C-alpha cells in the first residue's frame, strides 16, 4: 500500500517538476520575476515556481488519513524532492552545454540565477532541492493541520496573493480616495507593499475565523427566519442595489477600469447575440465577427469626417442603419447555409468572416472603405453640446445596449420563437415534423444575432474613432464563442460571467501580454475540464448534465 503511494508521489512530483521546468524554459519564470506581488519580498515568478512543489505535496497526501502523519510528511518530501529534479536537470544542462541557448532562447543566465538563488550551478541545485523538499512537506502538511486552522491560513494567503496580482484594480479604485503618500505606502511601482499585504492577510484571516466560528450560522439562521414577504423584499432590495451599483460603477472604477468594463460590455453584447444563434438555435457560427465588422464599417462610412466619410451623418442616425446593415448581412448569410448542419455550417460561417475581413483589407474596396489604412475621424456621439469622449460616457451607451440585448434575449427565450429555436437545436428533423418553419426560424436567429453584433460594432467604431481591418479577425469570433460556452451555453448570466473571465481578466492582466494567450488557452482547458457545463449554466443544461444518459445528444 505504502509502496503504491510512494510511486504515486514520485509520479506527481515528477509531473510537477516537468511543469516547473516548462514554465522556466519558456521564459515565464524570468519574465514574471520582474513583477512583484509584494514589493521587494515576493515576485510572481517565485509564486509560479514554488507553487509546483506545494501543489504536488498537497496532491499526493490527499487520500492519506490523519493518523499517518509520518507517511504524509514522507510522501510530501519525496514529491518535493522529485519536483526539483527536472529544473535541476536544466541547470546542469547549462553546465554541460552552454550553447543550449541557441535552441532554447529563454534559458538565460538570468533564469539560471533565479533557479539557483544566485549561487553556482551545483550548490544552487542543492539549495533548490532543499527548498522544494520543504515546500513539498508543507504542501503535505496542509492536510494534517486541523481545518479550523487550515482554512483561515489558506484564505489569508489566497487573498493576499490574489489581490497582489490584481493590485492594479485596487490601485485604480483607491487612488482618488487616498493621498499620494498613502498610495505609496500601500502600493509599490508593481504590486502591493508589505504593509498592505499584512493588512489583507490579517483581515482575511480574521474574517474567515469569524465566519467559521458563528458568522456563517448566524447569517443562515437569519436568512431562514425571514418570512416569505421579507425574503422577497430583501431580494428586491438587492436587485435595486445592484442596479444602482451598475449605474455608479464608472465613478468607483475610474477611467482605466471603466475602459476595461466597456470592452467587456461590447463582448457581452456580442455574446448575447451569438448566444441566440448558437445557444438557443444550435447553429454553430464561427464567423460572427463579420457582423461586428459590418456594423463598424457602416458606422464609419456614414459618420467619418475624413476623406472616406460620405455624408457626415450623426451617430444616432447612423446607429439604426448600421444595425440594419448587419441584420441584412445576417439574413443573406443565413440563406445559403439553411440546409447545412453542424460542422459544415461552422466552416462556411468561418469562411464568411474571413471573406469580410479580406475584402475590408483589399485594394479592391480601398477607394470606398480605406483598405489597410482603415477609416479615420469617425464622429463621436453628441447630444446638444455634449460629446461622448471618455470611457465613462461610453459605459452608459454600452450599458443601455447590453441592457436592451439582455431584455430582448430574455423575452425571446420564453416566447414561442425561443421554444422553436430550442426544438431546432435539439433535433432539426423532429422540429420540422412538428410544423416549425425552419426557414424563418433560422433566418430570425441569424438576423437577431447579427443585430446585436452590428450594434456592438457601431459602438466600437465610434468609441475608437478609427477602424482598421485587422481588428476584425477570427480571434474575435473565437473569443465570443468561447465566452458563451465557458459561461454556460444558452444562459444569459453565463454570457456576462464568461465575458468577465475571458475578456476582463486578460485585459487586467495586460502586463503578462507575452504569455496572455498561453494562459488564456490553459484557462479555457482547465475551466472546461472542471465545469464542462459552464460557470453559470442555464437550468436546462444543468439538468442535462445531471441526467447522465441524455448528455450525449446534448447541444450540437
Amino acid at each position, binding site marked *: 500500500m505504502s509502496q503504491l503511494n510512494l510511486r504515486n508521489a514520485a509520479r506527481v512530483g515528477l509531473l510537477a517538476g516537468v511543469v516547473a521546468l516548462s514554465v522556466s524554459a519558456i521564459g515565464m519564470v524570468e519574465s514574471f520575476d520582474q513583477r512583484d506581488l509584494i514589493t521587494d519580498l515576493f515576485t510572481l515568478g517565485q509564486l509560479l515556481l514554488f507553487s509546483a512543489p506545494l501543489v504536488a505535496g498537497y496532491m499526493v497526501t490527499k487520500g492519506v488519513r490523519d493518523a499517518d502523519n509520518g507517511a504524509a510528511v514522507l510522501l510530501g518530501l519525496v514529491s518535493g524532492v522529485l519536483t526539483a529534479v527536472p529544473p535541476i536537470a536544466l541547470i546542469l544542462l547549462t553546465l554541460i552545454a552552454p550553447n543550449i541557448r541557441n535552441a532554447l532562447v529563454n534559458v538565460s543566465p538570468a533564469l539560471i540565477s533565479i533557479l539557483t538563488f544566485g549561487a553556482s550551478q551545483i550548490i544552487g541545485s542543492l539549495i533548490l532541492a532543499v527548498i522544494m523538499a520543504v515546500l513539498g512537506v508543507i504542501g503535505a502538511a496542509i492536510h494534517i493541520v486541523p481545518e479550523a486552522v487550515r482554512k483561515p491560513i489558506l484564505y489569508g494567503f489566497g487573498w493576499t496573493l490574489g489581490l497582489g496580482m490584481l493590485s492594479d484594480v485596487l490601485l485604480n479604485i483607491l487612488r482618488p480616495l487616498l493621498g499620494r503618500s498613502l498610495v505609496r505606502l500601500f502600493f509599490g511601482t508593481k504590486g502591493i507593499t508589505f504593509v498592505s499585504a499584512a493588512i489583507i492577510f490579517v483581515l482575511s484571516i480574521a474574517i474567515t475565523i469569524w465566519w467559521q466560528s458563528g458568522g456563517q450560522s448566524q447569517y443562515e439562521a437569519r436568512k431562514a427566519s425571514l418570512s416569505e414577504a421579507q425574503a422577497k423584499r430583501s431580494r428586491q432590495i438587492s436587485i435595486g442595489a445592484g442596479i444602482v451599483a451598475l449605474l455608479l460603477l464608472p465613478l468607483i472604477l475610474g477611467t482605466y477600469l471603466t475602459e476595461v468594463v466597456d470592452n467587456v460590455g461590447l463582448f457581452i453584447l456580442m455574446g448575447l447575440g451569438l448566444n441566440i444563434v448558437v445557444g438557443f438555435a444550435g447553429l454553430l457560427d464561427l464567423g460572427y465577427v463579420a457582423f461586428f465588422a459590418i456594423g463598424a464599417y457602416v458606422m464609419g462610412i456614414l459618420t467619418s469626417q475624413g476623406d472616406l466619410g460620405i455624408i457626415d451623418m450623426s451617430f444616432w442616425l447612423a446607429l439604426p442603419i448600421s444595425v440594419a446593415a448587419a441584420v441584412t448581412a445576417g439574413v443573406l448569410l443565413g*440563406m445559403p447555409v439553411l440546409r447545412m448542419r*453542424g460542422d459544415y455550417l461552422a*466552416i462556411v460561417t*468561418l469562411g464568411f468572416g474571413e471573406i469580410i475581413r479580406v475584402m475590408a483589407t483589399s485594394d479592391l474596396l480601398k477607394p470606398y472603405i480605406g483598405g489597410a489604412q482603415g477609416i479615420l475621424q469617425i464622429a463621436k456621439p453628441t447630444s446638444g453640446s455634449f460629446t461622448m469622449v471618455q470611457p465613462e460616457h461610453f459605459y452608459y451607451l454600452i450599458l443601455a445596449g447590453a441592457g436592451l440585448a439582455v431584455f430582448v434575449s430574455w423575452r425571446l427565450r420564453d416566447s414561442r420563437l425561443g421554444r422553436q429555436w430550442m426544438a431546432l437545436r435539439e433535433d432539426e428533423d423532429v422540429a420540422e415534423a412538428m410544423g416549425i418553419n425552419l426557414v424563418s426560424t433560422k433566418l430570425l436567429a441569424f438576423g437577431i444575432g447579427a443585430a446585436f453584433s452590428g450594434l456592438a460594432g457601431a459602438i466600437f467604431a465610434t468609441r475608437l474613432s478609427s477602424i482598421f481591418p485587422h481588428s476584425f479577425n477570427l480571434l474575435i469570433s473565437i473569443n465570443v464563442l468561447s465566452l458563451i460556452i465557458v459561461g454556460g451555453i444558452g444562459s444569459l448570466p453565463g454570457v456576462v460571467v464568461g465575458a468577465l473571465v475571458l475578456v476582463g481578466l486578460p485585459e487586467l492582466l495586460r502586463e503578462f501580454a507575452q504569455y496572455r494567450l498561453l494562459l488564456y488557452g*490553459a484557462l479555457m482547458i482547465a475551466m472546461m475540464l472542471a465545469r464542462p457545463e459552464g460557470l453559470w449554466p442555464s437550468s436546462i443544461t444543468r439538468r442535462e448534465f445531471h441526467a447522465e444518459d441524455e448528455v450525449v445528444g446534448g447541444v450540437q
Partner: protein
Amino acid sequence: MAQRFKDIDYIGLFLWLFRAAIIVIVVWGTVAKLFLGQGNAYTTKDWINFLVAGLSQGSIFALIALGYTLVYGVLFMINFAHGEFFMAGTMTATIFVALPLSASGFLDKHPVIGMLAILVVAMVVSVSVALLTERVAYRPLRRAPRLVPLITAIGASFFWQYFFAGLFGSGLIPFPELAVLRGAWMIGGVEFLKTRAVVMIASVIMLIGLYIFIMRTKTGTAIRAVAEDKDIAALMGIDVDRTISITFATGAAMAGVAGILYGLVFRQVNFIMGFVPGIKAFTAAVLGGIGSIPGAAIGGFFLGVFEAIGPPLFLEGLGIPGSHQLKDVIAFTMLVLVLIFRPQGIIGERLAEKKA
C-alpha cells in the same frame, strides 16, 4: 402549408440566383481573361506554374487535412489544435536536428539519412504533443456536448502556439536548403522545381499508404469500427481509448511529415505557422467531405489549385486590382458553392450529414 412553400420557393430562388451569379462571374472573368486579353498575358508555361504552385500547396493541405478527417471520423470533433501538432514537430526538428546537421555539413553529404532523422524527430514530437493533448484536454470530455471539446481544442491551440514561441523564440527560423533538391527537373518539356516535385510525390505516397493502413490493416479496421459505433466496437473487444489514441497519433504523424515538407518548400518555420494552414486544411477536409480520406486528399489539392489559379484567371479577368490578396475569398466562396450543390462535400459520405 402554403406559407411554407412560398418561403421555400423564395429561398430556392435566392440560392439559384447566388449560384448563377458566381458562375457568371467565373465564366465572364475567364472569358475576359482568355479570349479578350484582359489583364496580363500569360503563356502556357505561366499557367503550368500556377498549377504546380497550387498542387504543391495543396499536397500540404491534403496531408494536414487527413488529421482533421481521421479525428472527425472517429470523434466527430473539430480538432482545432491540429495545426499546432504540425507546427510543434517541425519547429523542434528544425532546431534540434535540421540546423545542427546542416551546419555540420552532414545533411548535404547524406541527405537521405539526414532527412529521415529530421522526419522521425518531427513525427515523434508531433505525435507526443497530440497524445498529450488528447489525454489531458479531450479524453475526459468525451461524453460532454460537442461544443465543449471544441473549446478545449481552441484552448490547446493557443497554449501550444505560445508554449513553442516561449521555448524557441518568436522569430523566424530558417529551414536548411538541401543541395540535392536545388534546381529543377524537366519533365515532358515542363520545368518542375525539384522540391515541389518531391513534396508532391511524397504526399501522394503518404496518402496511399494511409489509405492502405486504414482499409487493410487490423488497426485500421479497428479505427473504422470505432468511427462507426464506439459502444459496439467496445463490445467486439476493441480498446476504444487506445484506438482513439492511435487515430490521433496517425493524424499527428502525417502532420509532422507535412511540416517537414512545408519546411523544404518554404524554407522557414515559426510558431504561428500551423494556424493558417490548419484552417485551410480544415476547409479542405470539409470541401472533400469530412470523415473521408480520399475526400481530404481531393479537397486539399482542389483548394490549393483554386487559390493559385483563381486570382489570375477570373479575378484579373474582371479587372480587380491586387487579385492574389483575394485568394481566401475564392477559396471560401468555392466552399459555399460546393456545399450548396453537395452538402456532404465532394465525395463525402451521407454518414457525415447524419451525425453532424
